[in-house]
């Protein structure tokens, strides 16, 4: 089953997901205050694939 999948096709999507996640994490750590506890956002960013980082950027950042 897994051998049938051409990984070079899926690689770009995985790389983009990793970039999105690491950028969200970096942004979250850098920010002195986010809305809600920081560990909660770190958890959301890591656990929920794709949607987690987007949620963080839309709802997690405090308007300064």
């Amino acid at each position, binding site marked *: *089953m897994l051998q*049938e*999948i051409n990984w070079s*096709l*899926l690689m*770009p*999507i995985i790389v*983009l*997901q990793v*970039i*999105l996640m690491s*950028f*969200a994490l970096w*942004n979250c750590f850098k920010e002195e205050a986010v809305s809600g506890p920081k560990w909660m956002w770190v958890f959301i960013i890591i656990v929920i694939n*794709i949607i987690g*980082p*987007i949620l963080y*950027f*839309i709802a997690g*950042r405090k*308007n*300064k």
Partner: protein
Amino acid sequence: MSGMQVLIQKEWLESMRNGKWIWLPIAFAILAMSQPLTMYYMPQLLEIAGGLPEGAVIDIPAPSGEEVLSGVLSQYTFLGTLLFVLAAMNVIVHERNNGSIIFISVRPVSALSYILSKWISLLVLYLISFMISFVIAWYYTNILFSMVSAAKLFGSIGIYSIWLCFLVALVLSVSTFLKSNSSIAGVSIGILAILALASELAPVYMKWSPTQLQSQAVQALQQTIISDLWLPITVTVLVTIFLLCLAIWRMKQWDYSGH
């Protein structure tokens, strides 16, 4: 209009800082790639999901490239619109709530250049995210399915871009009236949903509707002649101008002294 360039630069700096220039294009690229890939691996996905009787043969005819790209566009109609509205909802309210609008209001900046700078900078970000992701989807479609001509692709992109102009103007206009992020997103999505539902239920009466452009962007992929193209384009351009004027008019009513 002299302050325009400075305002647009400020907007870009702002969206660089809050990461919009990174996460929005990436989110759209992922959205665009996942559609052709899931359609390509559909038989394997069904097999993994299971539930098929022993010996069942899955025989799904391979979709044409045009059908796959239409699928990508329908992803944009739902998830894409949601992302576009959510990314735009706070651009004005954020400045009103934290008071930086007062600094802008004491400078010789007209409401016209303020609203236009917001509109242009959001639109450029959205158009770039949309185009890059759609071209990526096209690339994948050409590799995995059949070739779709570039002329059809750009026709479709052109029609969809007019829809984006309207979308940004709508969210900006709504956000000059309301003061919370969630109500702005709610009202904007509500208006778009009503328009989409009306086009669905009474297509004969809704030929003018801006939402019609979304289905015409799909049509542009499949055939060369698109029915009733100019009516929705004209209406959408006029409505966009009206919404921008409404936002400018509304901004002039704001009371800067309190909240």
